[in-house]
């Protein structure tokens, strides 16, 4: 059942460029980017029970790695960007994580928020290194050494780059599926449910949380690289705390208690936001109303809603 749904979803993703126009395709790309980022984020939030309000930090690290590599160093390889971003994110996540995972709940949230904002003000203020508020341009990367010079920018993004990103989503999604079902993933859930008991059982709570933190940072940075290539720009707003808030929003919208919930949330959020911004100047208000409704009425998100409906259908 579930495997069938996943195969169907991937088939739909692969067919999309033939069905949708370029406008909608440029929305599907960020949705995939956020989908990848949230797969990692939810390891920490959904499975580990740690609410970070600063993970936009790692998305921004990914984006700036792509920007520095392509514009400052002249390296065009997309694989090199992914590797550099992942390495940088993990390298930053270890000291940040070491300090943050000593806390839980609101203190963890505030500490991660402070680290995120620290990076934001660095990006914003140190104009010479980071380009200040305008950020750094990201030029088109090459995929597996091919630079597709015959394709225009849009054709490249919705063509080879899109399929590449779908491949990344599937591969990283599969890896995450293995992670959450491994003994490590189960231990992580145990530390969320009852920290003390799992300590008695010999789980090294902080180490496991740190590892989850580093993995989530890695996934977020990959999402950041895709976002930056898609918009052609890395700017400080990517690290701002409201962007971290968006990440949490998407996760809860899709349903953090479900493995696929965050991906559903990412797609819903990106499409919803595009629709709302097209319809009204006051799209933030309506996004807020939707978040309010989700939090108050449907705390298990879209995935939870779907599951309830499915259960009712089967009973009937």
């Amino acid at each position, binding site marked *: 059942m579930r495997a069938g749904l996943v195969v169907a979803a991937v088939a739909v993703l692969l067919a999309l460029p033939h069905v949708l126009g370029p406008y909608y395709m440029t929305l599907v790309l960020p949705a995939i980017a956020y989908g990848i980022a949230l797969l990692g984020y939810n390891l920490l939030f959904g499975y580990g029970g740690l*609410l970070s309000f600063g993970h936009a930090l790692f998305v921004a690290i990914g984006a700036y790695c792509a920007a520095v590599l392509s514009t400052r160093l002249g390296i065009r390889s997309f694989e090199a960007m992914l590797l550099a971003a992942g390495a940088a994110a993990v390298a930053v996540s270890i000291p940040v994580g070491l300090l943050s995972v000593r806390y839980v709940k*609101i203190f963890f949230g505030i*500490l991660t928020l402070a680290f995120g904002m620290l990076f934001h003000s660095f990006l914003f203020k140190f104009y010479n290194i980071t380009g200040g508020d305008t950020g750094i341009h990201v030029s088109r990367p090459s995929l597996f050494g091919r630079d597709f010079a015959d394709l225009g920018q849009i054709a490249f993004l919705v063509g080879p780059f899109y399929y590449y990103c779908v491949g990344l989503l599937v591969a990283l999604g599969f890896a995450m599926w293995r992670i959450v079902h491994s003994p490590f993933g189960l231990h992580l859930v145990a530390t969320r449910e009852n920290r003390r008991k799992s300590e008695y059982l010999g789980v090294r709570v902080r180490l496991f949380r740190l590892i989850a933190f580093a993995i989530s940072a890695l996934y977020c940075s990959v999402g950041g690289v895709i976002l930056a290539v898609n918009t052609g720009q890395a700017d400080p707003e990517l690290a701002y705390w*409201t962007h971290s*808030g968006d990440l949490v929003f998407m996760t809860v919208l899709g349903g953090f208690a479900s493995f696929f919930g965050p991906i559903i949330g990412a797609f819903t959020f990106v499409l919803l936001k595009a629709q709302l911004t097209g319809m009204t100047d006051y799209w933030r208000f309506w996004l807020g109303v939707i*978040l309010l409704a989700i*939090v108050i009425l449907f705390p298990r998100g879209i995935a939870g809603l779907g599951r309830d409906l499915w259960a009712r259908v089967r009973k009937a």
Partner: protein
Amino acid sequence: MIAFLDVVIGGVFHAAVLFLVAAGLQLVFGVQKIVNLACGSFYALGAYFGVSAVTWALGAGLPPALFLPVLLAAGLAIGLIGPFIEALLLTVYHRDEAFQLLLTFALVLMFEDVLRYFWGADPQQLGNLVMTYGTLSAGPLKVPTYNVLVIAASIAIAAGLGAFLRRTRFGRILRATAENREMSLALGVNVRWIYASVFTLGTVLGTVGGALVVPTAAASLDMPVSLVVEAFAVVVIGGLGSMRGALLGALIVGLMRAAAISWYSELEMLSIYLVVIVVLVLRPAGLFGKPVE
């Protein structure tokens, strides 16, 4: 020396306003255990409403010298949206705090557009009204009288709040509820009422803070999200839930920001986040906070 004193006075002024917002945050966290991301939105709401109220009052023929009482009244009046917001929060009191935080994040999003709807995207300001009170000078040092009045008002509010929490019956019940909600309930305290009043008080502190600051700085749409991080820095440095902590934290953040702006502006906010991180690492509960877990 004069430059140094200017920085100190600027810092203390900023601290006075920050303290009001942070005190509201502390009060709500102390009693209801909710971290209110929308405190910055209340602050901005107070600022915008203050501009409109003063502009209206001056148009109605009020002498400019009376604008401070008008601002205070405007801040107090718009703070009365508190109970309505609290009614929304009521639905998530028993839930995980992730939901509480997200609910206030939803409020941040909504308020930004509410402000945009009523006041537009352009910053609103009161022009040179501050100067109606003139400047105080001590030798070569010149300070706008208004800034001194705001500092005094903030000190008065801090003292009043302290006396209210320590000496009055309501204040004692409030602190008891913060300490142990179940026991208060068992002893017949109307916790619903306590929660609604505490949240409203927190809101009023924010809106009054915003109203007081607006003659010296324009009200703008990015006010809420940037103030929240400063207010967070204050409560984390001081310790979540502690009033003395809010006072000390506000002074540290206010002075550091003023110093950084005038001597090395690249470090403006960076220095504050660094202090937050250092405090959390060395004293996890903040300078005056109670240790948790």
